[in-house]
């Protein structure tokens, strides 16, 4: 089977509010796949559904041929041992040092002797360039460094699948470049499959093999980064070129300015159309 993760006809809603409707995606082994879209488009929800932290309304997700069933906790914990996830702000354990954060999954899931565990942790930290920061506490390192420590922790058990939730958000240009290169390099070295959720076009296009664009819970476009750059799809164009107005309107739908200022008394048909959207 060439796809590590497959999503078929996936729908999900928070109460009455639909988030994803009829999504289908393939994540081939060994590839870095970017899932892109504006805020609130359902990107992070997809990661949580793959990780079994949310139960889909309908549809199916399979990882390595096994169906993800969020209702079956023991099975999910077994499946999660194949996964690593980098959270948006790192989610480091604030009461543990950098070393202990990376050692945490190893201590929980293996009975390795201390000496081997130490070597493994230092190797993981070396891979992200923070071997010499091993004894620091999370409060003593920068946001970019915290993200790299979290990355070292996510790959501690050499997972088949690594998920990244907004790995570039809030990083300075240097840290951003480092993070992007690390994601690509670690994916290739470990032979894993990476799912990258982001809205940073340049970095994502630089390292991804394939891109899915989400808008309002639906896939609006997908293809290689090169194809996406050339795409004539209005949503992709607006997103890639960072245009303020387009399919995603600059103004929140509602009445017109003229009407609010009392310059127009009749109902504006465009406003009604906008409200329906």
């Amino acid at each position, binding site marked *: 089977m060439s796809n590590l993760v497959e999503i078929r006809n996936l729908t999900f809603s928070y109460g009455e509010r639909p988030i994803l409707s009829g999504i289908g995606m393939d994540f081939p082994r060994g590839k870095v796949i970017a899932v892109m879209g504006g805020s609130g488009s359902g990107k992070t929800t997809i990661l949580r559904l793959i990780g079994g932290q949310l139960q889909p309304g309908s549809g199916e997700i399979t990882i390595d041929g096994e169906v993800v069933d969020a209702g079956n906790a023991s099975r999910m914990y077994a499946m*999660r041992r194949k996964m690593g*996830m980098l959270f948006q*702000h790192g*989610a*480091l*354990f604030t009461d543990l040092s950098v070393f202990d954060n990376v050692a*945490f999954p190893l201590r929980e899931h293996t009975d390795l002797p201390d000496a081997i565990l130490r070597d493994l942790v230092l190797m993981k930290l070396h891979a992200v360039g923070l071997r010499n920061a091993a004894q620091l506490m999370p409060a003593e390192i920068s946001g970019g460094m915290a993200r790299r420590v979290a990355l070292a*922790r996510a790959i501690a058990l050499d997972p088949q699948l690594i998920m990244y939730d907004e790995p570039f958000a809030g990083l300075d240009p240097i840290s951003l470049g480092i993070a992007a290169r690390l994601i690509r390099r670690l994916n290739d070295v470990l032979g894993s499959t990476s799912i990258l959720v982001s809205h940073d076009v340049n970095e994502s296009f630089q390292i991804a093999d394939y891109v899915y664009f989400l808008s309002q819970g639906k896939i609006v476009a997908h293809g290689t980064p090169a194809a996406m750059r050339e795409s004539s799809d209005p949503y992709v164009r607006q997103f890639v070129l960072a245009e303020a107005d387009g399919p995603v309107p600059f103004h929140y739908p509602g009445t017109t300015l003229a009407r609010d200022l009392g310059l127009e008394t009749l109902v504006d048909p465009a406003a009604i159309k906008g409200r329906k959207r």
Partner: protein
Amino acid sequence: MIAALLENLGRTSRTTVTGVGYATRMLFRIIRASGGLWRRPRLVTDQVHFIGNYSLIIVGISGLFVGFVLGLQGYYTLNKYGSEQALGLLVALSLVRELGPVVTALLFAGRAGTSLTAEIGLMKAGEQLSAMEMMAVDPIQRVVAPRFWAGVIAMPLLAALFSALGVMGGYLVGVKLIGVDEGAFWSQMQGGVDLWNDIANGVIKSAIFGVAVTFIALYQGFESQPTPEGVARATTRTVVFASLTVLFLDFLLTALMFN
């Protein structure tokens, strides 16, 4: 008007029943997840150390001052009947049967309980619990269950400390300050305090308070909204619910234990 009232009543009832359901389910999850702690007792002992430390000073000082006041008030009352020799007995029984477990539980809720709620709530807000889940580690087993049992173990120890220091406080005020006979103070206490009916029941009481207060604190943290405001509200709820629960349970247990 009536429809709105009924709607509110219905919503409140449904929310309450749902909350009780969630809480019961979480308590069972904690108990089910506790088996693994026998293999890693360090997780519990570390928490006993932390949680005990949170409350040690406040419980100790409060116990001493409550003992001072009991010494003064007890002497004032007993002296009216010429029974000031029984001051030691009065101080000890008041402490081991009632004040020790109850005041310790209230202080524990205010000190360690709020810390537990804030700690778990902030771990949730910082996605640490989600990260743990994604590392295939159950947060109930790794984070909640050790703290729960630590609270259950720490509470009777703290209550014992409270009572011991209270007795010392009563002794200092009654014997050293006012001049009650020292021999009578201790001998009346020794003769009147029963190991099972008084001390053991007090210990059972404080262990039950330990279950209630620690569980409420952990539940509130675990179910808090992952925002600064949500954690603040959860911390407040811990103090209110835990204090009321302790007072209600105290009445119930006193009625059951001491007939």
